[in-house]
């Protein structure tokens, strides 16, 4: 993953303005009551894979949130770089520790908040930043336009129907049973995946459709940067398509 970009200076006021409305009752409680019992330590694959590095124990990774709140956001670049390294490279927000925590402390949610806070300060992996821009502009992470998308599907249909005569890839078919969604990498780099799926659906006699409008990309990289707003829009797009096309189910790949 590319390193973080940080075009602007750190602004403590901004950090606090970002955190204050978001640090709710749960976050405060979790930071207050964690008994540091370390029962979560060996539920973390980063801890186990690092030869049990104590810095990989889940509560250790969210100490930054407590510290930043205590320091009222007055931290320097080196500090935020350390935070960045920990929350992006030493936790993938799998939530396994929460399942074993006697208090049910949701470490991943706090990591996500820290990621969102860093994003607000312009500190975000370059790949994620670009993907989020693409989502905002085109509704998918690969910036595939509607024309390109529809064109790709039609071309896929042509190719696949050469092998299986009569095969169709239904676009915007109202009342289909299944709304199928893909990873945006498929139309961009791996259209053969779409063809394979089309063949399976054809042979299985499945009643399915792809939407032409955005909502067909089922990846949600904005979530990984804690960008809740964009993450929500991405999901809403898919729901909108499902409602418009009156499908019964949405199929998500991966």
């Amino acid at each position, binding site marked *: 993953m590319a390193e973080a970009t940080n075009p602007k200076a750190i602004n403590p006021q901004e950090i606090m303005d970002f955190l204050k*409305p*978001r*640090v*709710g*009752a*749960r976050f*405060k*409680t*979790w930071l*207050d*009551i*964690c*008994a*540091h019992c*370390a*029962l979560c*330590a060996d*539920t973390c694959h980063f801890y186990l894979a690092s030869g*049990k590095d*104590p*810095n990989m*124990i889940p*509560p*250790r990774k969210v100490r930054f949130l407590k510290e930043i709140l205590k320091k009222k956001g007055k931290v320097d670049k080196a500090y935020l770089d350390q935070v960045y390294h920990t929350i992006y490279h030493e936790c993938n927000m799998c*939530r396994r520790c*929460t*399942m*074993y*925590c*006697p*208090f*049910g*402390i*949701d470490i991943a949610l706090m990591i996500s908040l820290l990621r969102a806070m860093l994003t607000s300060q312009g500190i975000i992996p370059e790949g994620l930043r670009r993907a989020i821009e693409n989502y905002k502009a085109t509704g998918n992470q690969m910036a595939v336009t509607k024309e390109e998308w529809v064109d790709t599907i039609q071309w896929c249909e042509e190719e696949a129907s050469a092998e299986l005569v009569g095969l169709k890839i239904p676009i915007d078919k109202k009342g289909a049973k299944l709304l199928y969604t893909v990873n945006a990498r498929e139309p961009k780099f791996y259209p053969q995946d779409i063809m394979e799926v089309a063949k399976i659906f054809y042979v299985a006699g499945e009643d399915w459709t792809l939407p032409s409008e955005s909502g067909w990309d089922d990846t949600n990289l904005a979530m990984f940067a804690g960008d809740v707003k964009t993450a929500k829009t991405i999901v809403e797009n898919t729901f909108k398509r499902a409602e418009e096309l009156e499908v019964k189910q949405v199929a998500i790949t991966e």
Partner: protein
Amino acid sequence: MSMYNFVAGPLLWLSFAVFVIGLVVRIVTFLKVSREKDKIIYQHFNWRYVLLTFARWLMPINPTVAKTPAYFLLVYVFHFCLLVVPVFLQGHIILWEESRFGWTWPALPHLLADLMTLVFITVAALFLLRRVLSRDLRLLSDFSDYALLVVAGLPFVTGYWVTHGTLDAVLSRYTMQIIHTLSGELMLVMIPLSKLSHFVLFFFSRGASAVEFGRRGYSM
């Protein structure tokens, strides 16, 4: 007013007031702040997940017990003694009976109370030792993690000394009683003011996470 009368009088009232009001403030704060900033709890609230998670973790039927049974057995014993001994100790019940309230309830047999006290002190000492000896725990621990174990242990140690006159040669029973009462009051006060607030916040923290995990199909 004698020293003991002060410690067992106004100071005790004050401690109980801090204890009760402090916990109420903790609860009200959680409810108030969460209504505004943790809407997800209310949007997806379901007693089923909440009550199930309480049951699984108040009783030893959860994945962590299966993972670390020996340690968790000690955790349960520790909390059980901590809650039961002070409430059901004959000596304490007599004080309630003699107080303006005149309340009384069945007491633990002396021998059992003694045994539970000694078990509690031993487990607390083990926890403290574990915290000091483990590299991982030393890194995680802050001052309060050590101090609060001592705070929880002191009333038991001093209580045992009072009951058995262990230190009679050094300190008068009277002084010891004052020290014991003070240690109990310290414990009461620290419950709402420190991470011992998990006395009530345990339920809110677990409940909130259980709702969030439950709606995603995992009843924790």
